[in-house]
């Protein structure tokens, strides 16, 4: 009796009645694309972590195209819609502070050389200009110079005014 039960169980499990198991299966696809990484910081360079980010596409500046939150390093990444050139506006805000940045994103048509293996084929390459990190992160030497001169003159000039000899 026992033997017949074991046999029937083995038959049941091996003869294709069983369903494929999905729970432990894994599949990974990949797609190469170009993303825009925005980094938000406070004035002192501290990352603006967990700030709200809203992206507006070039053809609709009123309706948000996507929304998200910056990570711990103040970064927010999004992949612009392919073929949609123009200025992508990104609005980042946290506790009443924030900034709006306009990012130029262009799809450039590039003809590949004849000798190349994919000859005579047009390629669309996304081009995103990178913002100058010195603009936001630190003051230029000209700014520092103007600041130093104006502050020194402000203090010195005022001190001299008050300690001038009364006539």
């Amino acid at each position, binding site marked *: 009796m026992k033997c017949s039960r074991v046999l029937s169980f083995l038959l049941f499990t091996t003869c294709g009645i069983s369903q494929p198991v999905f729970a432990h299966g894994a599949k990974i696809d990949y797609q190469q694309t170009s993303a825009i990484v925005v980094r938000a910081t406070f*004035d002192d360079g501290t990352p603006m972590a967990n700030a*709200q980010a809203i992206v507006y596409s070039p053809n609709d500046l009123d309706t948000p195209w996507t929304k998200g939150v910056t990570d711990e390093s103040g970064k927010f990444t999004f992949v612009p819609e392919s073929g949609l050139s123009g200025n992508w506006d990104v609005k980042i805000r946290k506790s*009443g502070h924030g900034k*709006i940045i306009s990012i130029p994103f262009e799809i450039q048509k590039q003809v590949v050389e004849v000798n190349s293996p994919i000859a005579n084929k047009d390629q669309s390459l996304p081009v995103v200009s990178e913002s100058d990190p010195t603009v936001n992160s630190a003051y230029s030497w000209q700014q520092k110079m103007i600041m130093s001169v104006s502050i020194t003159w402000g*203090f010195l000039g005022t001190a001299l005014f008050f300690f001038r000899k009364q006539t």
Partner: protein
Amino acid sequence: MHIPDGFVAPSICIAGYGISGGMIWYSLRVIKQDRFSQANIPKSALFTAVFFVASLIHIPAPPPLTSFHLVLNGMMGTLLGYYAFLAIPIGLFFQAVMFQHGGMSTLGLNAVIMGLPAIVAYSLFRLRSKIPQKRQFLAKALAFLSGSSAVLLSALIFASISISTISPEFDADAEKFAIYISLGSYLIQAFIEGLFTVMIVSFLERVKPELLKI
């Protein structure tokens, strides 16, 4: 505590310019009656430079609070009186142009946020004349109150404007929570700026007491 460009409706920006314009007009009227304007104008210029630079001094705050920069509008009001409402917009203008703190469209609004509390600080500090000479501790406490109350008042105005102008595309609850958290750092800032005002007032009392007469 600077409201940036593009985060508030144009009508609010215009209202900010209207209120600050009215305050500047009134301040100029008061200054016109000042007998010592020749001496007070360079003093205002000096403190405008201090106000302009103060925004670059960052003080770290314990997490989850972020660091904050000095505003010193309380000190400005305490030492300059109505001259402060001329000095603050000028300082804000240069901060917006050179350091991108705030913005040109919100200049009037930011002037209201920082200028009106400066006038309140001045009104508080004027009560000093009623304190008897023997009670110097009370005079110091009044200087502290003037310096710190202006920052707190500015923070409250800033928070109310920020909360009331959250655009619908943002998560309003998350933004409100972040604003309430940031009020904690303004509390520390108010304490520091109150102490700073006491130090400046005490120093001027000893070195050049006539500078305190506005």
